[in-house]
């Protein structure tokens, strides 16, 4: 009698253990790289946690380095070691070609959702027929300006760099005379990292100086229009921008602008909702437009195409759960909420016609052509070598901004550097 009881107990115990094990297999822990800045992590974790409550899984955030180059280096080292510590990687628009061997094909999980996003972004994320990432949000470089100050000095938003320089000089002198001693005309990203590559590409493309490397692989950066563009930017440092701009990334520039210390700012769309947040000193005084154009042949308004995708690591221990979270995070409902609350640009065309999205971000509808016409960095052609290309571009631009060299000499050196990077082939 006693022994049968024991056996029964044991059996029940085993059953309970088995049940525990079964739920443990189902309830996975998924680590998602939400972003680098506080607002990014907050906005992303809000939705990721909602997903976790719904599915019974657990999510953890991985805050990636603020400098995209550093973030990429972390991922490449993790992937080289075949580590599955981070299940969902946040992938910059220039990375799919670099990380292609280490990302899971999301096609079986997407079930047609891929057709709902901008085709150009999906094409960028598709390598050899595999969907390596679902678009999270898209970005382009924009010009933010202070509507109140422009009205005070009876100025219009600038459409050329010359107008921007003239307005910035005037307003900076006026505001400094009025007691704002640290007021700056224009802030941008001059810190030596990927953001400077984006800024430099905008300057060069806006003067018709090309895209650094052509689509057929030719190095096309050493030209007179590109030199003119860099010379124009170098003139800002120490005049309408403080020398400190050489160490400004996105958040540094936003800090200055949002504190009311600058007239113009070059930044990504995310800065809009923060500038318009209730505790922002410049709330209601900010306007957004396309970046100014240069002059000469081929001059145009040029914003660098940015944006982030969510991808699943090939080494993830919970690929199904991770892929499910990726599709949830890139769904129309989540993208709409993120657009309204945090001004992250949706990657779904239909959301640009959504009344609520437009009400929160007027510029998204009016600047849709600007988004569609963004300049892509030469990542598709340079593939695995893109990080080295970007480093060389950053270096050249930083040297010119710091007045260590002339634009012509910097571009000649950059051309040589890019040949070194390319070697025989891209």
């Amino acid at each position, binding site marked *: 009698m006693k022994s049968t009881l024991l056996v029964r107990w044991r059996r029940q115990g085993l059953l309970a253990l088995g049940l525990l094990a079964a739920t443990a297999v189902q309830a996975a822990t998924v680590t998602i790289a939400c972003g680098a800045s506080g607002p990014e992590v907050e906005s992303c974790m809000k939705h990721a946690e909602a997903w976790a409550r719904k599915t019974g899984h657990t999510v953890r955030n991985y805050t990636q380095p603020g400098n995209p*180059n*550093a973030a*990429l*280096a972390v991922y*490449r*080292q993790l*992937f*080289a070691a075949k580590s599955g510590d981070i299940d969902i990687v946040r992938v910059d628009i220039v990375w799919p070609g*670099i990380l292609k*061997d*280490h990302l899971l094909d999301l096609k079986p999980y997407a079930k047609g959702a891929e057709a709902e996003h901008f085709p150009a972004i999906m094409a960028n994320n598709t390598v050899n027929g595999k969907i390596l990432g679902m678009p999270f949000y898209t970005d382009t470089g924009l010009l933010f300006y202070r509507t109140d100050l422009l009205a005070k000095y009876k100025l219009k938003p600038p459409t050329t760099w010359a107008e921007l320089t003239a307005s910035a000089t005037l307003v900076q002198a006026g505001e400094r005379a009025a007691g704002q001693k*640290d007021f700056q005309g224009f802030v941008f990203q001059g*810190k*030596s*990292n990927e953001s400077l590559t984006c800024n430099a590409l905008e300057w060069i493309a806006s003067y018709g100086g090309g895209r650094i490397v052509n689509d057929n692989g030719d190095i096309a950066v050493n030209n007179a229009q590109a030199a003119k563009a860099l010379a124009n930017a170098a003139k800002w440092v120490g005049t309408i921008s*403080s*020398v*400190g701009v*050489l*160490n400004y990334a996105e958040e540094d520039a936003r800090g200055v602008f949002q504190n009311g210390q600058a007239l113009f700012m070059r930044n990504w769309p995310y800065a809009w909702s923060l500038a318009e947040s209730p505790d922002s000193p410049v709330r209601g005084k900010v306007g957004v437009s396309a970046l100014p154009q240069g002059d000469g042949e081929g001059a145009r308004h040029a914003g660098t195409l940015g944006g982030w995708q969510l991808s699943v690591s090939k080494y993830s221990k919970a690929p199904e759960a991770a892929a499910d979270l990726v599709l949830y995070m890139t769904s129309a409902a989540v993208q709409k909420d993120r657009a309204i609350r945090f001004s992250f640009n949706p990657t779904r065309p239909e959301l640009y016609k959504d009344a609520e999205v437009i009400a929160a971000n007027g510029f998204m509808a009016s600047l849709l052509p600007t988004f569609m016409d963004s300049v892509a960095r030469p990542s598709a052609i340079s593939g*695995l*070598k893109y*990080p*080295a290309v970007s*480093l060389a571009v950053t*270096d050249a631009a*930083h*040297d010119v901004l*710091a*007045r*260590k060299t002339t634009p012509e*000499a910097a571009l*000649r*050196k950059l*051309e*040589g*550097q890019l*040949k*070194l*990077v390319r*070697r025989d082939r891209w």
Partner: protein
Amino acid sequence: MLALMCVVAVWPLLRSIWFAFTETNINNLEASRFIGLENFFGPYGLFFNPNYTDGFWASDWGTAIRNTFQFAFVSVILETLAGLGVALLLNQEFKGRTLVRTAVLVPWAIPTIVSAKMWGWMLHDQFGVVNTVLLNLGVISDKIAWTADASTAMWSVVAVDVWKTTPFMALLILAALQTLPKDCYEAARVDGVHPLRLFWKVTLPLIRQPLLVAMVFRLLDALRVFDLIYVLTSNDSSTISMSGLVMREMVDAGNVGFGSAASTSLFLIIMLSAVVFLRLTRTKLEE
């Protein structure tokens, strides 16, 4: 023990040297292609490269070598002088000597990353305390971007390094001073020899050997500098060191082959520097 050494030291070292002769991307370490000495002397290599349009010393690698040696020489000389001064002071009998000796070590005890970050904030152009103090004293009229401006960035790095490693030099020199025979100094005092003369003729020759050893240590350490520059400055061409360039090529750009070639060259350059330094000082000793 031998096996352990092989696993943690010999194998990685040999692998890194092997990579220096290949074209390898971090994307797939197995897919490396042997290219001989091309990373060093080829058309895309570190030295004698036709694609360096402005000569070797303007290339990235040349700039890194220049920056590193500039940093190493200036900071080691300043640290030795400052360390010597501090050691002579601490060698005197005074009240609370033990406490001061311990306190002096604080900068050396702080991890470099922490002190670099700390100084980064103190030297910040907008809200840094250094600019505020200098502005209030009237020394400067405009805020200076110490770590961003190409003309001051390297000097900021040198200043922080001197601040950090002077205690190390002081400690080694102090140890040497403590071993000096007391009777020499007794005799000098009786004869009424001038203290400066005593220093040049007695103290300095007696502590020469330990001083040189300390300097070699510091020199080798300074030639490997990485963390201080990486954290404090934007790591661009005005401050990047040889190790910084290795990290950039190998990790940021993913060129494991080229980066390994640079790190192998770095190793050879440091070894050569040590040999030259020891040669120079030895001949002087024999004179």
